[in-house]
């Protein structure tokens, strides 16, 4: 176990290092950020001076070395637009994104598992076919369009739910949460529902496929034969064996949700780190883009690691190597 952990941590560091090279290299293609820093009427000398201050006159390898040294020292640079440390900006907005992603994920799981179990247990029923067609439609829906339609119908036409912002938040354990206040709860419904669609569809399909495979196996027949009710067989015996692929996909989906949260936040003006990323791309705020990507990469590496450890907890047959 210990040697596995050490190996994994080493792998994680290598991955993050490679990501830092890619991100840094790609970002140096995006044009000269000097012009973001100097006034419009700056002279040649002033521009050259600013470029020197930013370290852009040095060769690429040296620039990357400085970048890496700063990151390791915890200095992620300052935003050109906000004139604040970029990492601070991201951390400030992270709770909003995480909150939305978690609500969407919970929503998806709560709906996907029962529906998937049903569709897998009774594949011939009309309802099951309807569920499957619906899930295929869910995968085909453009996430941004769903959000717009929800805004148009529920916020513009019928004026039931608000369409932008987080609403009132309540401070708990150092972070502001929307879901704890009635107003904030209203605000989170539409973004979370928009975000959960494709995840819901994918989790549902995985659960169903696993369910159909498991239901054919002998231990299910045996459980029925010993007199267990069909419902208890479904949820106690079968579901437990379906969970492993669901957990794998869950980890991947968590990443996808964070990715698609950028679009959802953009539509609903949700003040999370995804919206910050889009705004920074528009304004060419290079340090914020770099820190966002490094931070998200870090997050994914941790998620993957956690998923691998969860496997062993669900299924003792899997050994960590």
């Amino acid at each position: 176990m210990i040697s596995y952990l050490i190996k994994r941590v080493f792998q994680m560091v290598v991955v993050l290092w490679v990501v830092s090279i890619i991100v840094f290299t790609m970002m140096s293609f995006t044009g000269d950020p000097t012009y973001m820093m100097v006034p419009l009427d700056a002279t040649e000398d002033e521009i050259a001076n600013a470029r020197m201050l930013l370290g852009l006159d040095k060769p690429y390898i040296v620039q990357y070395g400085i970048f890496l040294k700063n990151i390791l020292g915890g200095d992620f640079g300052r935003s050109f637009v906000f004139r604040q440390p970029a990492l601070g900006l991201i951390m400030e907005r992270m709770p909003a994104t995480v909150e939305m992603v978690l609500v969407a994920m919970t929503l998806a799981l709560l709906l996907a598992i029962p529906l998937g179990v049903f569709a897998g247990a009774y594949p011939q029923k009309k309802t099951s076919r309807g569920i499957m067609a619906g899930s295929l439609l869910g995968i085909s829906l453009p996430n941004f369009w769903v959000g717009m339609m929800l805004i148009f119908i529920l916020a513009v036409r019928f004026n039931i739910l608000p369409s932008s912002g987080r609403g009132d938040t309540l401070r708990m354990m150092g972070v502001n949460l929307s879901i704890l206040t009635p107003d904030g709860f209203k605000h989170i419904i539409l973004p979370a529902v928009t975000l959960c669609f494709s995840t819901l569809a994918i989790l549902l399909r995985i659960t169903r496929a696993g369910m159909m495979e498991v239901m054919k196996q002998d231990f299910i027949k045996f459980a029925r034969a010993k007199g267990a009710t069909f419902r208890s067989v479904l949820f106690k015996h079968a579901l437990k064996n379906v969970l492993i692929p669901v957990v794998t996909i869950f980890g991947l989906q968590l990443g996808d949700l964070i990715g698609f949260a950028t679009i959802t936040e953009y539509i609903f003006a949700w003040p999370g780190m995804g919206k910050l990323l889009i705004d920074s791309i528009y304004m060419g705020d290079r340090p914020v883009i770099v820190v966002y990507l490094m931070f998200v990469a870090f997050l994914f590496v941790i998620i993957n690691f956690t998923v691998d450890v969860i496997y062993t907890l669900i299924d003792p047959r899997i050994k960590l190597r």
Partner: protein
Amino acid sequence: MQRLLRKARALWASEFAHNFRGNISAIVGGVIILFFVFIVAFGPSLVKQNPYEIASLQLTDAYKPPVWLSGGDPNYFLGTDGQGRDVLASIVYGTRISLFIGLSAMICSSLIGASLGLIAGYYGGRLDGVIMRIADVQLSFPSILIALFLMSAFGKGIDNILISLTCVGWVIYARTVRGSTLSEKQKEYVQAAKAAGLSNRLIIVRHILPNVVTPLIVVSTIQIGTFILIEASLSFLGVGVPITKPSLGLLVKNGFDVLLSGLWWTSVFPGAFIMLLVFGINLLGDFLRDELNPRLK
């Protein structure tokens, strides 16, 4: 002619065609795809306006609602946008751009991905390790974020979208093809080809490739839909296609700006077309996967 007819009859009688006819969702998917093929081929000659010809636009016709609402103009079946552009015509031209990007990205990424998968699976060793490590790491990042990042570095443009989508999409091909290649490599026909003294390259191209084409087709179908959705998302965020080449996603974005004022038709219809197109592709892809997967039979 006679031979062609016989071939068509044989195809119609084949198991594949029989299963297709018995599968409602496959038929629906097929009809949707035929509809889009029709739009792409004949659409521009059927709509009255070319949305790229600025001279043909009438600013006085801006924001006309669809024809069945009061104030609708029979010339503009689905209404017009802020420049008096026919929404239906924009959709017809936008569909062509979206489909072109989806198909080209599929071809580029399958060529690169499948080649890498074949090489990794056939030769194995260190090369295999490196390619699959990269694929593993890349797969743990959401493709939309990778594409978004690449587009923000490259800038707008159809060529840049194709590059980004290829960077995102090769992984899935490489993995699928590598898996199939590994199992094909063990089989006797490959051993026989080796014993006969064929070069590795010939074995890969002539013998292994034809046998890994089936999973490739399944993945490709579904990937077209995925690529179209990613392109639409990028264009919606304003980092995708340039304004002069509006894909369906960019049309939705343009409509988004006026949605809150109740002008819904400029964004609802293009979005519905994206959904329909991807839905049709997914229905067919699902059918193909079940049909071509020998494990399920």
